[in-house]
């Protein structure tokens, strides 16, 4: 009993982690499977075919590249506009500021089904051909809100005295923006862009409504699920997970080093 009481938190933590990571582990393991029949659901035999011939199944790699392309374009445009909107909302008082704040928030609160279907209705009414451009427009539209919110938070958290100090030190408004405001907000903008890319990359519902015959990676997976997902898709999914994992580890490592050097510095100086 005592042993259980002592280790209860640890046990629960392990259970939660297992719950979170078992699905990912299953996908990773099955990417090394050589399945019998169409469905890659039960273990048959170890194979690295899917990894060595990752583009071997038609559609897997082309949809993957397309999703990355759309993600990059959508993020670029949404970040530029989103950051500018955030600056306007935080820095200036103007008529309709509160309304704009509310309207920016709405797309995040609206169900994707509603957004996707109403966009489709709009494009059909305009007789706009569905495809790459409609998907891109849709992605820019729904990522922009998230980017505005993220950049706004960073701007609001910035000490207004820093810009005052810059003005006090002979920097005109343009120089203050270039040398103080922008460098300080940049991490917030990059974080927002990363979030925007992640949202765009794995969006299915809005994309599906407005894609026409265009096949993005999530749309491909959905289609393939009906007929049996090729092992290559498992390999690609695992790859994406690994890239994300490496990314997170690198950021953690940099932060850790920075904290250590900071502690060392303070330790020496006091």
């Amino acid at each position, binding site marked *: 009993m005592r042993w259980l009481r002592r280790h209860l938190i640890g046990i629960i933590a392990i259970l939660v982690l297992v719950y979170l990571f078992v699905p990912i582990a299953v996908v990773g393991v099955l990417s090394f499977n050589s399945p019998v029949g169409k469905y890659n659901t039960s273990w048959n035999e170890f194979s690295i075919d899917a990894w060595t011939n990752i583009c071997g199944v038609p559609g897997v790699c082309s949809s993957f590249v397309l999703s990355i392309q759309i993600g990059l374009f959508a993020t670029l445009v949404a970040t530029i506009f989103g950051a500018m909107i955030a600056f306007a909302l935080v820095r200036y008082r103007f008529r309709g500021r509160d309304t704009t704040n509310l309207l920016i928030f709405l797309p995040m609160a609206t169900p994707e089904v509603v957004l996707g279907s109403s966009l489709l209705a709009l494009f059909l009414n305009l007789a706009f051909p569905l495809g790459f451009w409609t998907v891109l427009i849709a992605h820019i539209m729904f990522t922009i809100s998230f980017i505005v919110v993220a950049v706004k938070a960073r701007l609001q958290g910035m000490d207004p005295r820093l810009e*005052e100090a810059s003005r*006090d*030190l002979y920097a005109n408004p343009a120089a203050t923006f270039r040398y*103080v405001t922008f460098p*300080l907000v940049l991490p917030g903008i990059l974080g927002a862009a990363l979030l925007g890319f992640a949202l765009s990359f794995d969006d299915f519902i809005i994309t599906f409504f407005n894609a026409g015959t265009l096949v993005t990676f999530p749309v491909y997976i959905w289609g393939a699920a009906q007929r049996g997902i090729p092992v290559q898709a498992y390999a690609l999914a695992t790859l994406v997970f690994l890239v994300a994992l490496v990314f997170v580890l690198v950021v953690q490592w940099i932060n850790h080093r920075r904290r250590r050097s*900071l502690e060392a*510095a303070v330790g020496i100086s006091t």
Partner: protein
Amino acid sequence: MTLAPGANGVDVADLTLINLTKSFGDFIAVDDLTLTIPAGSFFALLGPSGCGKTTTLRMVAGLEDPTAGQIMLGDRDLTSLKAFKRPVNTVFQSYALFPHLDVFENVAFGLRRRGIKDVAGQVNQMLELVELGPLARRKPGQLSGGQQQRVAVARALINNPGVLLLDEPLGALDLKLRRQMQIELKRIQTEVGTSFVHVTHDQEEAMTMADTVAVMNMGRIEQMGAPVDIYDLPTTRFVATFLGQSNEIEGQIVESSGDELVFSAYGQRFGVPASRSVVDQGPAYLGVRPEKLGIVPAGQADSVAAQANQVSGKITDTSFAGVSTQYMVMTSWGDEWIVFEQNRSASQPLRPGDEVVVHWLVEHSFGLSPQV
């Protein structure tokens, strides 16, 4: 090391505020302020929070637009000049160092913005002055509070401002470091010869550092002068209690004989020199500083000189602090007085409950107007 004044195109000059006013809606933060801060002086604006001292400083820096009035540096009118064009620099409360730039770049910031190409010599010289040479490549986040403070001073001073403004610069430091930085700032000011305008709510800090202290309250300057003079002879009840401590009696000035006024309260008479009283008849307050008081047991009242002012009372609290003892004395009319007594005698301190006579010299009294 000496820095030649004028590197910023400005010689050290008098800073003059003329009828300076700032209101936020109905609230008047600074009320028709007129004052001159002489070139090269260490000037302290002292007051409680919300008295308008920081607003005054921000108007001089150009970070706040005055509602009315003028700000002159020498014969140059700064009033409508943008902050980034004013030959004035600020050490901000909590420093506002640029977190993404290292110490060197923080200090070089002002020079670079003014288009000066070769900054290394000046920056290193300035870092030398504030003893931060070895830390030039550190980021502000890697410095201790005292070091950050010195970077903030260096970053402002390197521009050779006509006036250096300091907004509660020591507020974030612990007591020991604060004492150290007070001496340091005073040394730097003497070395560079620039006028320092120092805003603070800490009366001890203002008195130890400044040549001239202006005590501010509710947007106005109550009294201005050398610390010794205003401490010795406060002219308002606010100054008497904000700058140090005071004991007060409420009463009337009833007659004057020569250069001494007679003050009457609770059936007793007290003397105050006419030159130390702002009122010469009618309702008034008599004040005296706690360390000017002597205290004897009631039984030894005869030993007190007859012409000295006397108040009898009963001790309610005694706190012994080594070099001195602080007594709280309840006067016969029920006011609580503070008495500081140096521990020079061999006898034990008096105890709570003891009946005592508190006495002081007529020339230590000061007379104040009853208005706060």
